[in-house]
């Protein structure tokens, strides 16, 4: 009798142990994302969504992270920061995510930061403005180059071409405003004079009044257009309509073939700072980024039938940095993952080589940017940049 009881007890305990060990393995790591898949920033959010989906599937097919599968939860804020904030709260309270990779636009990101800071969830943003990481916030990181770097790269190119007086026409969205402020701050040091400034709303469909005023301002040698999405495409079209022949510079907020498609032949000769991803096939084989960007380009094009954009690349970098941090931390614990993200070193991504630190939650320097010019409807590298 006692032997049977003893045996049954052991069997039950063993069964419980086996079941208990099996349960955590079936729990998934939840990665949340709020992206501007529709609306004026759709050519940022749409490739970001597709990229995250493709690579989460790929990682899960290879066994997941630390033996756990990833679950991606994406919400569409339609380019409206208020919606982003609502979805961020939903991700934290209802979906109970472990980490967040998202925020296509600066406006959406800035709206969501307080939610993730309060909930102590690591947040890797895909937006441009420098305010996202300056001042450094404990839980917030980002992958795209900052607007400040864009201004510095543009000004360096202007000086190279001996152009020192410019006009600026910026979008009134958060990124456009932020980059405009950064350019105004960086101009005196770079020896650039801003002769006049105009602005436009992100959903405007006609910028000819503003461009007319710029055209009629004496001494302007080049025009810089901080903004993203549809606005710069219309600015570019209106620019050629008015017959303005001065050099036009865009920001990396237009680094997508959609911009070239929307702007049409007007985009010829436009220059912009952008990541190596756009010229993947034209990079020298000694460039450490080449294998990564070529691989990403082919995977993305094959799975979606669309050309790559830097925005999808930033989402790729965000996801990979997060996943590698989780692998180093050997868990999905939010605080440990955060610490590991901050320790990311020599991560070679589509945006550049990332070296983060407690004071630098971006990890890129100016060498991660190249100056591109649009020729024949395609990106070309301006030599020596």
């Amino acid at each position, binding site marked *: 009798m006692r032997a049977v009881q003893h045996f049954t007890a052991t069997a039950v305990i063993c069964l419980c142990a086996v079941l208990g060990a099996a349960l955590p393995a079936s729990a998934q790591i939840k990665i949340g994302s709020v992206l501007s898949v529709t609306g004026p920033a759709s050519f940022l959010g749409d490739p970001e969504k597709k990229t995250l989906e493709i690579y989460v599937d790929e990682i899960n097919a290879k066994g997941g992270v630390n033996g756990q599968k990833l679950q991606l939860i994406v919400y569409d804020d339609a380019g409206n920061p208020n919606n982003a904030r609502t979805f961020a709260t939903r991700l934290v309270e209802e979906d109970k995510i472990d980490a967040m990779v998202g925020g296509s636009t600066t406006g959406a990101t800035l709206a969501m930061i307080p939610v993730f800071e309060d909930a102590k969830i690591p947040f890797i943003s895909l937006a441009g403005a420098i305010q996202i990481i300056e001042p450094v916030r404990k839980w917030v990181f980002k992958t795209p180059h900052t607007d400040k770097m864009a201004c510095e790269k543009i000004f360096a190119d202007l000086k190279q071409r001996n152009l020192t007086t410019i006009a600026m026409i910026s979008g009134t969205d958060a990124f456009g405003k932020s980059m405009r402020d950064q350019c105004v701050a960086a101009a005196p040091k770079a020896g650039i004079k801003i002769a006049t400034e105009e602005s436009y709303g992100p959903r405007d469909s006609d910028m000819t009044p503003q461009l*007319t005023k710029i055209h009629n301002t004496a001494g302007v040698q080049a025009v810089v257009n901080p903004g993203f999405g549809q606005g710069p495409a219309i600015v570019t079209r209106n620019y050629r309509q008015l017959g303005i022949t001065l050099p036009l510079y865009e920001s990396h907020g237009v680094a997508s073939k*959609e911009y070239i498609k929307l702007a*049409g032949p007007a985009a010829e000769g436009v220059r912009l700072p952008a990541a190596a991803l756009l010229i993947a096939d034209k990079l020298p084989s000694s460039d450490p980024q080449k294998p990564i960007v070529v691989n990403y380009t082919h995977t993305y094009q094959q799975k979606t039938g669309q050309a790559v954009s830097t925005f999808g690349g930033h989402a790729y970098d965000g996801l990979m940095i997060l996943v590698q941090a989780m692998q180093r931390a050997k868990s999905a614990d939010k605080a440990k993952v955060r610490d590991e993200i901050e320790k990311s070193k020599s991560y070679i991504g589509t945006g550049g080589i990332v070296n983060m630190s407690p004071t630098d939650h971006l990890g890129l320097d100016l060498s991660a940017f190249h100056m591109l010019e649009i020729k024949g409807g395609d990106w070309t590298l301006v030599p020596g940049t």
Partner: protein
Amino acid sequence: MAELLQFAFSGLTVGAIYALVALGFTLIYNASDIINFAQGEFVMLGGMTTVFMAMAGIPLPLAALIAIAVTTGVGLALHRFAIEPARGASPVALIMITIGASVFLRGVAQIVFDKRFHSLPPLFGADPIQFGGAAILPQSLVVLAGAAVIVILLWLFVERTLLGKAVIATAANRLAARLIGVDTRRIVDFSFAVSAAIGAIAGILITPIALTSYDVGTLLALKGFAAAMLGGIGSPLGAVVGGLLIGMIEALCAGYLSSSYKDAAAFLIILVVLVAMPQGLFGLVKVERV
């Protein structure tokens, strides 16, 4: 001077579109006392359907005709399936139905089409014409000409044809029109169909300049409504003048003040008109004899 001319051109171009939308509002209002807030969606449907037909390989002129036909069908369906069954309801309820229809159409457009911005090739090329120091796009001239042709055709139709007279009769007094044998239901059908067609043509003409996407209808409807109110709701001439005026005010605001306030200009006008001059510029003060 050249600057003013430039602003005037862009103002007139966008004003022509507001005028066509306002004309659509006026037509339906005249025939049935309903303000159709789905008017903006007709413009969107015209542009988006043409783009997607063209993407499917259909030659552009045919795609445009198909788009106009489809939008007219949608306008008729709106009347037959949404407005007509509720015809006894109060005007406010009917307006709410049209707002619901506009949201529905926008939702369907997101699924059937997509959520990105699209363009069409301009009719006569993209090289601007220099005139008096200002650059005007050939497409702008096409938009203005198109609007003028539509207005003239409508005027001719109303003045010279029996059906046109029947529309006027319905607008003047529905009961009396029915008493003399006018089928007012058909007239309202017709007004919805024509409004939809006008909206579609406006959408096709403006897409090469202002791009189109699934949600351009909302703002257009509001501004077209402001234009109709400014000109006097119920007056076709008022609709056209109101539209052009709002377009001009927007462009001058963007040019001389700041572009951030440009949208506010149209809405400020609605407020001013509703307070100071509810009948608008050309509207007649309604007198009811008791």
